[in-house]
């Protein structure tokens, strides 16, 4: 229960952050990715602001084995850069560049009642389901 409430809080604040920063608007994101046109550096400031806070949070988290609510600290341990990581990133980047949506802003725009965002999110969930099916088949083989 505590875990879910903290999750709800984090999701809500995350959503507010995307709205305030303008990142729920795909045109603004594409303005950042369009480096050869008139370039809007805003997205870099969003990342910078988030990382400024994040660096402190992770510095605290690294020293703890339990969270402040008493849950296990689950930090990723993999440092391996493999084909999956890079190819997956490239694939995601192409989709990001086509529509200007990444997962978070897609969900926020869906909540704002944008029909086009709903179509994007439906296709994204379908993509995740396709990935899941491929992984399961691979595990069986």
């Amino acid at each position, binding site marked *: 229960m505590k875990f*879910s*409430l*903290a999750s709800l*809080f*984090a*999701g809500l*604040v*995350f*959503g507010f*952050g*995307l*709205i305030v*920063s*303008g990142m*729920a608007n*795909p*045109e603004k994101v594409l*303005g950042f990715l*369009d*480096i050869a*046109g008139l*370039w*809007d550096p*805003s997205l870099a400031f969003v*990342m*910078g*602001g*988030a990382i*400024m*806070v994040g660096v402190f949070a*992770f510095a*605290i988290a690294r020293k703890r084995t339990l*969270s402040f609510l008493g*849950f296990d600290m*689950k930090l990723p341990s993999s440092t391996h850069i493999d084909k999956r*990581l890079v190819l*997956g*990133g490239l694939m*995601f*980047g192409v989709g990001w*560049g*086509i529509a200007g*949506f990444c*997962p*978070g802003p*897609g969900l926020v*725009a*869906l*909540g704002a009642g*944008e029909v*086009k*965002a709903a*179509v*994007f999110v439906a296709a*994204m969930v379908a*993509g*995740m*389901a396709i*990935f*899941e099916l491929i992984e399961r088949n691979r595990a069986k083989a």
Partner: protein
Amino acid sequence: MIEIAWNNFTPWSALAGGILVGIAAASFLLLNGRIAGISGILGGLLAPAKGDIAWRVAFLGGLIGAPLVWLTATELPAIEIEAGYPALIIAGLLVGIGTRYGSGCTSGHGVCGLSRLSIRSLAATLSFMAAGFVTVYIIRHLLGV
């Protein structure tokens, strides 16, 4: 030579919104001990384990509910979606498969990964940023869409 779009550039609201995103990721990490990676939180619902569903739904509910809560206080800023439906479907499929295959998106690798100085997340972030820049260049400047 890069030309800045001074009329669209919003450094202060971008920074303020970024700090909020950072606070969200920080509270998720320090309260629950987890990385706030949105593609992972959503994707995990497609292979649900017992006791692993409610918190995911809660996080996503917060994200989707944020604009609704926002609307009770004030108007939402504009959301302009220029892409057509076929493009949105292709983009969605690529983002869905790509983020799961690459174990993360802008939040998990970009915000959280760079915050914990992970080389792996840096490699992922450079990959999707580079692909994003090239894709927009091709669409806007080579194809002229």
